[in-house]
């Protein structure tokens, strides 16, 4: 499982509230990614990080921010959650051979 954990695994929140999802890895990988997965769409990149404090936007970054203050943790924040952000969120790391390995996911429901 490439040592990736995500927390929380499930969350229900209300529109307008802030939400932070955490991704934790144990294998010191440089690259970390946040994706969302919705029916009818492939995984879509929200943000990624290529090192501590180094991040870049992906395809669907509006409404999301990220932070990486330590190699092992990559946080995804929804500053003011909206119903369109109801989704399953996956964190991934990039392995030494270039592969991507995924965490177990966080199911977020915004009411």
């Amino acid at each position: 499982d490439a040592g990736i954990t995500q927390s929380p695994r499930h969350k229900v929140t209300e529109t307008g509230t802030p939400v932070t999802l955490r991704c934790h890895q144990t294998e010191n990988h440089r690259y970390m990614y946040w994706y969302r997965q919705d029916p009818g769409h492939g995984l879509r990149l929200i943000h990624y990080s290529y090192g501590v404090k180094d991040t870049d936007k992906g395809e669907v970054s509006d409404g999301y921010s990220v932070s990486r203050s330590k190699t092992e943790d990559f946080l995804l924040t929804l500053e003011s959650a909206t119903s369109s952000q109801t989704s399953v969120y996956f964190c991934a790391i990039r392995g030494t051979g270039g592969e991507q390995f995924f965490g177990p996911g966080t199911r977020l429901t915004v009411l």
Partner: protein
Amino acid sequence: GESVGLHLPTLSVQEGDNSIINCAYSNSASDYFIWYKQESGKGPQFIIDIRSNMDKRQGQRVTVLLNKTVKHLSLQIAATQPGDSAVYFCAENLGNQFYFGTGTSLTVIP
């Protein structure tokens, strides 16, 4: 964004038969591809990968074929088992980013 598509959204096969799942990619500069398996409620699981300097790569019961001329990727599963039932999708790598197809749902009929 990049477009990575799958030819069929669903596929049903008899247990013991071989399965073939297809994927088309759009960018000829893509140099690395991965196939994933995703079971309900779980994260995508890495199955096999292939780099653009290869045409074929084999793993345990799985083979990936890459045809760069027509930008096509396929995953072959030999002797399909009930545990192979899942959604399969391909990913295309460009630089630091990956682009994913929507997936094919494979159902294995006992």
